[in-house]
């Protein structure tokens, strides 16, 4: 039975089994339920900022969105365990605004699903796919400490 993992108290790195990395913490428990409700996190902007900067990889997606699922499956398939922040429809606008504030250097509108790697906005599904096909995604993930070996 998986225990609920409180955020900010995750020791890094956790395990380094060959091929299976648990470097980034996750806001989801084993049954994929959000442990932290968006409301609790949204109020202080700092929490979102620290969430982003402390995760090697974090994905912001609309709740139940299939494209968010695609991004997550792709990253999982590479051996990365990305943090996932599911956004309710009513919180969408607010979350986007905050993400744009902490985007850390990337231009353009923030759209869901939005992927942050190594603390800065990487892009959406388009960019993730293109970077993966060109073979550049894995080195970037390794640099950010999301992948070992």
């Amino acid at each position: 039975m998986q225990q609920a993992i409180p955020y900010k108290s995750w020791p890094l790195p956790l395990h380094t089994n060959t091929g299976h990395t648990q470097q980034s913490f996750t806001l989801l428990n084993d049954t994929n339920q959000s442990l932290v409700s968006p409301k609790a996190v949204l109020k202080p902007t700092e929490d979102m900022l620290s969430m982003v900067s402390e995760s090697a990889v974090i994905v912001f997606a609309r709740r139940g969105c299939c494209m968010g699922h695609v991004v997550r499956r792709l990253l999982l398939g590479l051996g990365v365990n990305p943090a996932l922040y599911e956004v309710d429809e009513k919180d969408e606008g607010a979350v986007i605004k905050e993400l744009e504030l902490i985007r850390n250097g990337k231009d353009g509108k923030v759209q869901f699903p939005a992927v942050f790697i190594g603390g800065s906005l990487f892009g959406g599904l388009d960019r993730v796919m293109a970077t993966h096909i060109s073979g550049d995604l894995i080195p970037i993930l390794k640099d950010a400490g999301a992948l070992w070996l």
Partner: protein
Amino acid sequence: MNSPSAQFVTSRRIGVYDPIHQIGMWGENFKSNSNLNASASLIVEDVKLDSQSQDASHGTEGPSNQYDQEATKPTDKVQRRLAQNREAARKSRLRKKAYVQQLETSRLKLIQLEQELERARQQGLYIGGGLDAGHLGFSGTVNSGITTFEMEYGHWMEEQNRQICDLRNALNAHITDIELRMLVESGMNHYFELFRMKATATKADVFYMMSGMWKTSAERFFLWIGGVRPSQLLKVLGPQLNPMTKQQSLDVLNLEHSCQQAEDALSQGMERLQQTLADTVAAGQLSEGSCNRQMTNAMEKLEALRTFVGQADHVRKETLQQMLHILTIRQAARGLLALGEYFQRLRALSSLWATRPREPA
């Protein structure tokens, strides 16, 4: 022209009420004889009476029969037979009338379609590009976005065949790399053009794109989210690119692997979408009949389908471009040629299959 009686004799010899034969007779008479109804009904009645007694042929009763006591029973039987026969003939006439009306309507429709086709041909449009005989767009409403796409696809295919020929000739003629590069770039741009066309058509009808309706049947067998599976293509074409350097072989293998991973992620997303859509449609009690809300929610979910087709094409495009990075110009030219020929073969297979001799039913 054959006289009705001669045709009737043939039918009589067969001894069965042969509807096809009847239709043939009706059809020919219709063309050249305005007395169709009269002569045809005679034929019908005569055939019907083939097994009946001769004197009952025109539905008249013989008054002489009534005087004979012993003949009363036969008279009744005869009269009953006459009545039944009249009834059957009447029903047959009605059926024939309905059938002829149906034929008339279809004939008019056919003339209309032929006229449209002729008009379109004269304007230089190409209808029916890669479509088999089997595809007939039964959507009811005319979707101009799809019609446009099919027309443009026809042109695209013609251009594609030309480019394949050019590539083949160029490689055999050992032209310079610079000239080859131009051909390769044309080829690549041509594929990018197809992706653009698909993007526009997806807005018109995503289900059409998802079902690969513009493709031939053998191509459709390999369908994955509205197109080919990049990893599969790489597996097929990889060996055709030899000789390659070790590094190139490794790069192609890695690319194949990356495609596989991207495809898996998209496929899993699709499964999720299917599940979500199924749940949305089935929301509430199925036995209560559908309500607006389920339909509205379901429609929203379907919007996501367009994104999937877009993403799948994005992966295909990126794969093409990555191959261009990995290969030399000459290898790329050979690769494009192989790709084009592979699809030509698949299309030929579709035609062969469509025209294969059918087993007798």
